[in-house]
């Protein structure tokens, strides 16, 4: 089977789930992004969107599933107890992060804590769950992974960084980068991110705020749409996908913003990510420009 590299959004919403009639097109589920290749099931983050990803797996069938975590904010982990494969012993569930394995396990355990759930810890769930520390150049199902630290206000002592990822299909060298959650500004951290995502074919980027909103939200850990588009352009990104939609943002708001931003940044290629849509990387196309 030929290679394939694509992303599918199961959750595009930041902060809190926002299900309502006015958000059905872009979606109200919190963060979950599937990395589609032909050889592995991989999701980045486990916001509530992961429950629909879970519905694609037949129950009680042997399967290997990989979840890679950017960070531990609730909107990126809260869906894990509602991920159906967790309830079947036939599931091999691999949980990945650049953090030490014991820290990842310790931090995700709260989701299955006996005060917040009917369960007694993540290790007592039926699935065969293991924790893995990502190292640069690791491969999952033939897809190569590297990571970079993002700018996401996590300053107190017991906080761990937020990580961005680049997934590369080795034969074509085409890649997808996931940059969320990240506050893009003119600083060292962002320069490192730009180096990391340079020439990436598909760049998924945090774009929670409008330019005006961002003025009030500096330091909150998210990018303005303008900063996200600038990052994508500077990285020569073939296609940008803007995600982590603010909970207040309705479909119609995103459509209007898209029209206005396209006028402003006419050279750049970007869309607001929509739930359930698949965005393919053309592995055969040569890079232009």
């Amino acid at each position, binding site marked *: 089977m030929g290679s394939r590299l694509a992303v599918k959004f199961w959750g595009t919403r*930041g*902060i*809190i*789930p*926002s*299900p*309502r*009639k006015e958000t*059905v097109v872009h*979606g*109200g*589920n919190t963060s979950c992004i599937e990395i589609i290749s032909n050889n592995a099931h991989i999701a980045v983050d486990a916001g*509530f969107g992961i*429950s629909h990803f879970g519905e694609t797996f037949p129950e009680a069938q042997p399967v290997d599933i990989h979840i890679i975590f950017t960070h*531990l*904010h*609730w*909107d990126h*982990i*809260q869906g894990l*107890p*509602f991920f159906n494969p967790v309830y079947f012993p036939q599931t091999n569930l691999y949980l990945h992060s650049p953090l030490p394995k014991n820290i990842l396990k310790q*931090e995700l355990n*709260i*989701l299955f804590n*006996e*005060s*917040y*759930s*009917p369960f007694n810890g993540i290790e007592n769930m039926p699935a065969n769950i293991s924790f893995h520390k990502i190292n640069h150049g690791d491969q999952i199902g033939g897809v190569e992974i590297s990571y970079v630290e993002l700018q996401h*206000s*996590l*300053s*107190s002592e*017991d*906080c*761990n960084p937020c990580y961005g990822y680049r997934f590369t299909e080795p034969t074509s060298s085409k890649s997808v980068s996931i940059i969320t*959650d990240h506050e893009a500004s003119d600083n060292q951290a962002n320069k490192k991110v730009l180096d990391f995502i340079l020439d990436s074919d598909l760049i998924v980027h945090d774009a929670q705020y409008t330019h005006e909103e961002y003025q009030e939200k500096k*330091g*909150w850990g998210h990018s303005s749409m303008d900063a996200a588009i600038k990052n994508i352009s500077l990285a020569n990104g073939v296609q940008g996908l803007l995600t982590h939609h603010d*909970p207040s943002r309705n479909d119609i708001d995103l459509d209007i913003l898209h029209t206005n931003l396209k006028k402003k940044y006419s050279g750049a290629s970007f869309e607001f990510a929509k739930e359930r849509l698949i965005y393919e990387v053309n592995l055969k196309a040569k890079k232009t420009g």
Partner: protein
Amino acid sequence: MPLKLCLNGVRGSRPTDRPDQMTFGCNSTNIEFKTDEDFYLILDGGTGLIPRGKSISENQKHSNFNFIITHTHWDHILALPYFKPLQDPNNTVTFYSSKPTKAKFEELFHRLLKEKNLPIPASVIKANINFKTVEPGSSFNIGNSVSVDTYQLNHQDITLGYRVNHNNHSACVITDNAPIDNGNYMGEGMKTAAKNNPSFEKDFTQGLINFLSKADTVVYDTHFTNDTLKADWGHSTPEIALDICHKAGVKRLLLFHHAPEDDDNDVQAKVDSIKDRAQKLGVEVEAATEGKEWVHG
């Protein structure tokens, strides 16, 4: 003045999002009791709390907020940190919850706010926050004319059923709650109580019936149907709810805690499955619906 019951979130287990669920609602448990007193009274912190918090902060009438918490499972508390009125230092928010089994509610609440997990800065939470412990089965007053009764339900830890009384009208919330028969003892202390009392199941059920006696409206966990019932998951069925409400002389039963997989047709089917019998028994039955309000008095 009337007692109004408002449903801001009716979905059980987790918030959902499908358009074919939006007639009855996708947001998880959040129920509000409106009176002419100068405070807000809200049950639980499911995701229905978030749009409600936004609308309150845009048109705020009182600075006192009282929360009555049934239990601390994720679907009932996950939205609490994002309740907009928590960001106003002029507001006072009081949480009533059961005495702790494993951890105090105050600790569980503050755990939600830790910087490593909270996607907004915790420093925006500026309201005065108080925590009050409720002994299961006890009653307390709020303000001049609201009294609240409690009853321990058949669900993990100490899950509290609430009865809110105001001007001779009462609205009750029974969630989450499983059938107690056949030794299905889920609540803290129930197994021990049953060992010491051979009539435990009968006493529990009669106690619940007494608790709901002649209430105007009862919101009852009917997550399952007879066919799908898994009693040890902690939820009930429309038939069980109707039986209890009929024996208690309840006027209206609202079927609640709609399963995440139920679409609007499934929810309507639950209503239809007991409608005829309910009519014969003199109990009105409706599906709990997000955004709907029931007025008593």
